[in-house]
């Protein structure tokens, strides 16, 4: 479980262009569930996602993962957290250009330096699950949009994290691909992963995979709905 306690995030603090992206947010995110952070752009959902994922530290407040504070760790441990506990799917996917699909998928595991053959098998297995095995040796910039996202998902899974964080995953997808994405989310959920997804796309929010919807506006949580099933 992730507990967000009174978290604020201020950019350019004390300067004329000061922005209060998050304002005293408190939220509990359950395990093995799909939680959606819903809201218009500028509502602070992406900022909240990066704080949860240890990409940044809150200006005030704290975040706990399974009861341990993760929001005040030294950088070295923040990196370890990102590597071991979280998998990220970025809005613009952020694959490394010029590298092959399989190399991209393996990247998050490099610092842990596992056995190479084993890692490669793992990467191939992840690609196989996402029906991308035939693209393994291809350079990522040659992939289609849907394929790129699946590679990004495979990359997020390579270290077998408990949490998968996705930022606006449908921003670059057409309807058919959204269906596919929902399938993948279902698959991850079935694997026991906990997902946090930021989106304002009703196709996701209204789908049956979502367990919790937290609505945000102007840096605050306005409502939290647990979907009854």
């Amino acid at each position: 479980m992730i507990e967000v306690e009174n978290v604020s995030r201020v950019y350019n603090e004390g300067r004329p262009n000061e922005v209060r992206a998050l304002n005293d947010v408190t939220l509990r995110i359950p395990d093995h569930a799909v939680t959606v952070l819903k809201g218009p752009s500028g509502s602070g959902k992406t900022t909240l996602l990066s704080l949860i994922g240890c990409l940044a530290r809150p200006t005030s407040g704290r975040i706990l993962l399974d009861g341990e504070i993760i929001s005040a760790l030294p950088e070295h441990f923040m990196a370890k957290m990102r590597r071991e506990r979280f998998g990220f799917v970025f809005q613009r996917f952020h694959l490394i250009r010029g590298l092959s699909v399989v190399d991209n998928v393996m990247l998050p595991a490099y610092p842990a330096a596992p056995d190479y053959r084993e890692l490669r098998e793992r990467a191939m297995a992840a690609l196989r699950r996402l029906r991308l095995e035939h693209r393994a040796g291809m350079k990522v910039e040659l992939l289609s949009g849907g394929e790129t996202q699946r590679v990004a998902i495979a990359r997020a899974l390579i270290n077998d994290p408990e949490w998968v964080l996705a930022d606006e995953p449908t921003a670059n997808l057409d309807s058919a691909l959204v269906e596919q994405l929902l399938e993948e989310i279902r698959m991850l959920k079935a694997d026991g992963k906990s997902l946090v997804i930021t989106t304002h796309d009703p196709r996701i929010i209204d789908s049956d995979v979502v367990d919790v919807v937290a609505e945000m506006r102007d840096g605050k949580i306005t409502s939290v709905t647990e979907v009854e099933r």
Partner: protein
Amino acid sequence: MFHWLARQRYLMDYTLAAMWRRKWRNLVLLVVFTLVVFLLASVSFFGSAVRFEAKRALKFAPEVMVQNLVLGRHALAPADWVDKLKGIRGTRNVRGRLWGYFYDQGNGANYTVMVADGSDPSLAVAPDEVIVGAGVARVREVEKLRNLLLLRPDGKLFKLRAKRILSDDSALLTHDLVLLSEADFREFFNLPRDAGFTDIALEVRNRREVATIANKISQRLPNARVVTREDILRTYENVFSWREGVLQAMLAASLAAFAIFAFDKASGLSAEERREIGILKALGWDTSDILAMKLWEGALLALFAFLIGAVAAYAHVFLFQAGVLAPVLKGWAVLYPQAPLTPQIDRLQLVTLAMLTIVPFIAATLVPVWKAAITDPEVVMR
């Protein structure tokens, strides 16, 4: 430790893949860098090998040479000096030497013409005979013709039967030699019997007395210049050192330029590269991973440049007779020794070169790379 190595290999994998994206640019960089190392190493290897040969061979040079100076210039030593020198206690084997230069108008080569003193039967030359060095033999086809024709400037022709051609093994000392009998030498150069000698060589009975004897000679023959074997050896310790130093300073400057280039490249990381660093950090790479990965980029380039350059230079100087340096060393000379050099290399210089190649390159990139490595991973969310 094993984990550390495994991690470095992964980082190397990444850096190589990243470098491969701009392979031509990196290849050109590697080639130029290698070339600089190659030239530096070649000059260093050649210099130390020549110094080694000089030291090895000139250990047996005459212990003391006495020259006559007239008007401050090297002139013929009067014949009676031989007896005067014999009169100095502690000297032995005093002998007048006759040698000079001959410019061969036919091919523009300079020969060193010398009288073999005949103390060694295999090098004794009778009148009408000649022993030539390998270089002279080559340009005059002595091996085929079995004789050597020398045309005196006044038109008189000397036809000499080649008794022997000195081998290439000694070419570094002898390739331009033309050894004549004393009679032929005097006739060829129009040198009367009483004209004296080019210089006088002698030995000293007790090695430790060389300085004392040299002093005594200077006192007894105030016009003389005394050159000891030590002086000769010291001359060759310095050979090339001057130009080698200038050349090395110039090439070292280009290494510095490389370091500056590396620094510039590392500090002027493109937006694309910064974004990549941000992505890697967001994926869980530590600052130290980014740092090590970026340092490998420079280190691999420098290591390859150093190793290829040094090995190629060794092959170049010792297997291919320093062909690239030859035009510089040869100057305007027609004769140039083709002796294989003993591959004496200065290991300290090699280590210095390695340090000069690898360390500045890495050091220059350290600070800018570190600055990039602490990029905030949050940038990938924007």
